[in-house]
């Protein structure tokens, strides 16, 4: 168990933390509203039941189930935000953001700039994804690099219940559009956190050094951060001291924290589930290369999803993304 996991007694999971963030935000700010497929209570409070109880507590006006119309969902969120509301739009799975890309990229991301700052779009796009359920090619993509390449939107994803709460609250508070990515396979991972207090925030753009170390730096986020923490524990047994940085916010990412650690260890591994080529790891590796030229002991290593659609069959799905073994192997390799 890593330092992070050891901190407190088991109390809350990521999915509970997300629900709690909704509850608290709705209770504290009447401008917070939400919409998405099946979200309201007559529809069961969402496919993961994250918003269960919300429409009953806060009314049908603020919590709305929608038709299957992702463009209409995003448009409604954008429009309401222009009028001073703080909508959380759920685009159920990240692959379905492809249907709403015009709204997100050409509109949400740009309206502040194109209006010269007259309007702003303080929305959160909550979206789920995740490997491991055998759902195949159209339900498990990680598209954070697309959004990170889009000026005007921020992107974040948690790997602990505390961060899930704190990032979501910060995203809701933020005056600009934020893509909040949830890893379904981590929803119920047992972790030892107390229920965060309603004041808890994780500032966007701040990474967490979840484990300190001196030999190797791992830069990662989401489910991969969990695996990296475990791999770091294993590496410690082999005498390798690994620092694990969970970016938490992928755009804008925390260059200072990453560069400081990279400078210290001289060995960097970047890990994400998204396709390796042109993934967010490329930007991070490129910046490290620019900023720490000549200061690294080894070339930056990147681990990412395979260059294929997500496959269905179990052995293929298992081989698709980095796992504990491949992370540990990379640690041993770079430390050698």
């Amino acid at each position, binding site marked *: 168990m890593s330092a992070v996991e050891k901190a407190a007694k088991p109390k809350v999971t990521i999915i509970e933390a997300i629900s709690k963030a909704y509850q608290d935000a709705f209770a504290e700010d009447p401008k917070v509203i939400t919409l998405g497929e099946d979200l309201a209570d007559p529809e*069961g409070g969402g496919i993961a039941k994250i918003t269960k109880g919300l429409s009953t507590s806060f009314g049908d006006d603020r919590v709305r189930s929608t038709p*299957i119309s992702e463009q209409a969902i995003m448009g409604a969120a954008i429009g309401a935000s222009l009028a001073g509301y703080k909508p959380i739009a759920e685009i159920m799975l990240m692959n379905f953001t492809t*249907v709403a890309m015009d709204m997100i990229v050409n509109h949400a991301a740009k309206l502040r700039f194109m209006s010269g700052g007259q309007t702003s779009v303080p929305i959160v796009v909550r979206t789920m994804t995740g490997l491991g359920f055998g*759902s*195949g090619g159209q339900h498990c993509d990680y598209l954070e690099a697309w959004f990170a390449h889009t000026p005007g939107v921020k992107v974040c994803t948690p790997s602990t219940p505390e961060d899930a709460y704190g990032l979501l609250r910060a995203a809701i508070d933020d005056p600009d559009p934020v893509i909040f990515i949830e890893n379904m396979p981590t929803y119920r991972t047992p972790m030892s956190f107390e229920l965060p207090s309603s004041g808890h925030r994780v500032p966007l753009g701040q990474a967490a050094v979840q484990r300190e170390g001196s030999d190797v730096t791992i830069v990662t986020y989401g489910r991969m951060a969990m695996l990296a923490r475990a791999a770091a524990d294993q590496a410690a047994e082999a005498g390798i001291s690994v620092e694990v940085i969970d970016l938490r916010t992928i755009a804008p990412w925390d260059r200072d924290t990453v560069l400081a650690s990279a400078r210290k260890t001289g060995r960097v591994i970047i890990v994400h589930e998204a396709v390796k080529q042109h993934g967010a790891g490329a930007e991070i590796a490129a910046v490290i290369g620019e900023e720490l030229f000549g200061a690294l002991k080894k070339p930056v290593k990147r681990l990412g999803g395979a*260059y294929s659609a997500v496959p*269905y*069959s*179990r*052995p293929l799905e298992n081989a698709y993304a980095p796992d504990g073994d491949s992370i540990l192997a990379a640690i041993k390799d770079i430390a050698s």
Partner: protein
Amino acid sequence: MAEKQFVADSAVLRSIYERAALLKANDERARKVILSGQIAMVYYSYRGQEIIPSVMGEVLRDDDTICTIYRGIHDMLGKGFPLNELWAELIGRTTGSCKGKGGPMHLTYPPKGIMVTTGIVGSSAPIANGLAWAAQLDGSDRVSVCTFGDGASNIGAVHEAMNLAAVWKLPTIFVCQNNLFAEHTTFEKMTAGKNIANRAEGYGIPGVRVDGNDPEAMYSAFAEAVARARAGEGPTLLECMTFRFFGHNFGDDDSYIPKEQKAAAMEADPVPALRARLIADRIATEEELAAVEAEIETRIDGAIEHALASPWPEPDDLRFDVFAQEIAA
């Protein structure tokens, strides 16, 4: 074209039943093997919706194409997807039609015209138009069918596709299987307007709401749509009323469905109803149908056995089928 022209005679009704029996048995088996833990997979039961694809399979030719959705195994079996390749794909083996790469949501079998299975709501419709365009270009009278749900009728892609099919007079048949729910949301709550069929008028194409559980009504409506398409008269939107008995997907807590509604629908289960009708009307005997059903079980047994005996893919297979050319190791 007079609607009366398309009447399901006794032989057709019997054949529709035989297809429906296969579909029903396959769904029951799928839920059984998942429940028993023998096989793990994402599964969207279509139980209750068997008549629609059984009729489609009856009317369509092998060279007619279909684009369907995650809840589409009934459509595929109706169209002739072979059981061995189906089951092997469902459990992710190399002998599956997609070599285990696609899985239950992306089953494909071009020899029977089963071209696309999509997990993205509404996306079957625009692609079906392209297959229809190809038929026009080939000078063929084959038709292109897309199926989708009631929920899908509210997504932009379906609207765009219906308009394009109408202006290009494509031989596309839009088959909306209205099972009254989209995940947990009722049809009425998310769909404005009297019904979905009605939207066809906005595109100047025929739109028909039909009882999709009634084999004769369904046959008459679908055969007419196909005849129109083959004759170059353009697309049709069919809204086929039906119901799914077992919620959105396997494991779904279906408490959002009013108990009475579900009970009434199951009470009116269209497959046994058709069976009873065949016997009552002396179109088939109890013994004949029992024999058909027993043979279906045997075929399913064989397919599952074959699937389970088949090899798993290797990680290296990820390098193939991304492009025609393999990806470097």
